[in-house]
């Protein structure tokens, strides 16, 4: 009731735990599993820093209870790089293009962009990229380099 048992596949690993039903997925990931790559900004769905993939689709982990993810699959930013630390092409493209300064918003951008690239395999236009990242706020870059990085990620991926 106020506690529940959940089984969630997180970054490929099945996690079974008793949790409080009021825990947000973002807090569960960060505070209970130590996956602090998912950042918590506004906690009401506006900033996008906490964006993760749920069954492959981007969602706000601050607008989900952890218990709602029971039986589902979660991917966080920690799943992107390879074991030896080699960047995922999207991360590499962000680094190459100075698409981050303070980096607080970056995990959310990376996860949104991952889903965007999977659902839009062809090189998108700038407008399509802007639309795709419109749910993620960045206060440092002015977005131009993020747009460049997304285009570059399409090149690196090939």
């Amino acid at each position: 009731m106020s506690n529940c048992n959940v089984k969630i596949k997180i970054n490929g690993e099945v996690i079974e735990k008793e949790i409080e039903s009021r825990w947000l997925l973002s807090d569960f990931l960060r505070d209970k599993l130590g996956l602090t790559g998912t950042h918590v900004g506004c906690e009401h769905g506006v900033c996008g820093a906490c964006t993760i993939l749920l069954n492959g689709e981007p969602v706000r982990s601050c607008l989900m209870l952890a218990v709602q993810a029971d039986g589902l699959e979660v991917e966080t930013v920690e799943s992107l790089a390879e074991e030896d630390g080699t960047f995922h092409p999207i991360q590499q493209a962000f680094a190459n293009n100075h698409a981050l300064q303070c980096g607080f918003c970056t995990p959310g951008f990376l996860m949104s962009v991952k889903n965007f690239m999977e659902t839009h395999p062809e090189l998108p236009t700038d407008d399509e990229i802007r639309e795709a990242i419109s749910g993620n706020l960045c206060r440092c870059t002015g977005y131009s380099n993020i747009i460049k990085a997304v285009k570059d990620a399409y090149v690196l991926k090939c």
Partner: protein
Amino acid sequence: MKPPKFSYLRPNNLQEALDMLAEYGDDAKIMSGGQSLIPLLNMRLSTPGYIIDIGRVEELKGIKEEEDAIVIGGITRHVDVEKSALVQEKCPLLTEGIRWVGHNQIRTRGTIGGSIAHADPSAELPCILTALRGEIVMVSSEEEITVSPEEFFLSYLLTSLEPNQLIKEIRFPKIKKGSGYAFEEVARRHGDFALVEVAVVIELDDDGTIADAKIALGGANSVPFIPEAAEEFLIGKLPDDSILKEAATLQLDDLDPEGDIHGSKEYRRYLSGVLLERALNRAIDRAREGVFA
């Protein structure tokens, strides 16, 4: 910014959900996608004893076609409606408007029933449903009833839903052959709630005169507003620029938008007229092109 303590209930089917509502309704909140409710919990503006998570009640999910309407289950997600070929074909006003609901990351969780039940005066779906003259089907453990948007939306965030009822499905009437439609909105940033929004469906006769006009404005009053005098004025007329301008501004004095730092009352009223004129023009162009042939 963390939800208060509550007991979490997750019904597996509609009957279980209705039984839980009958038992705990007064102290319970239904949770569908959680995209409006969780912010309220995080800010402690809502502190229910029970959360009834209907997100896995399969009977409430899906998009089906009936003779006159596209019927969408209460927990169907915005993205599923946005991508539906059936909706695009039979009720494209909905496809055009739903893209304005938040961002993709909100629409992957947010649901049709949640948007309607939340009844934000600036939300897109209540405005679109009102323009279409659709219906809301509510169910409790005792009965199922169908109401019009005018009966359903009572005021700002207030609807006729009783604590033991939930929204089972929503009926969006199809857009008929010979009709055109348009949705127009101005929001401060893409993905924000509307400052003002307009949804229009226009049916033309073979000779080009307006056979029917259905209009709703959102964000201008505490509930979606139907400008009846403007609709009547349009019917039977052969539309031209001056007639559409006159129709668009006919009832601006009946609008009572809340002014705030993002836009004064006067600005929102003025904007309503501009958007309505634009929407009428686009809807009529589409009807003339016979997009719906």
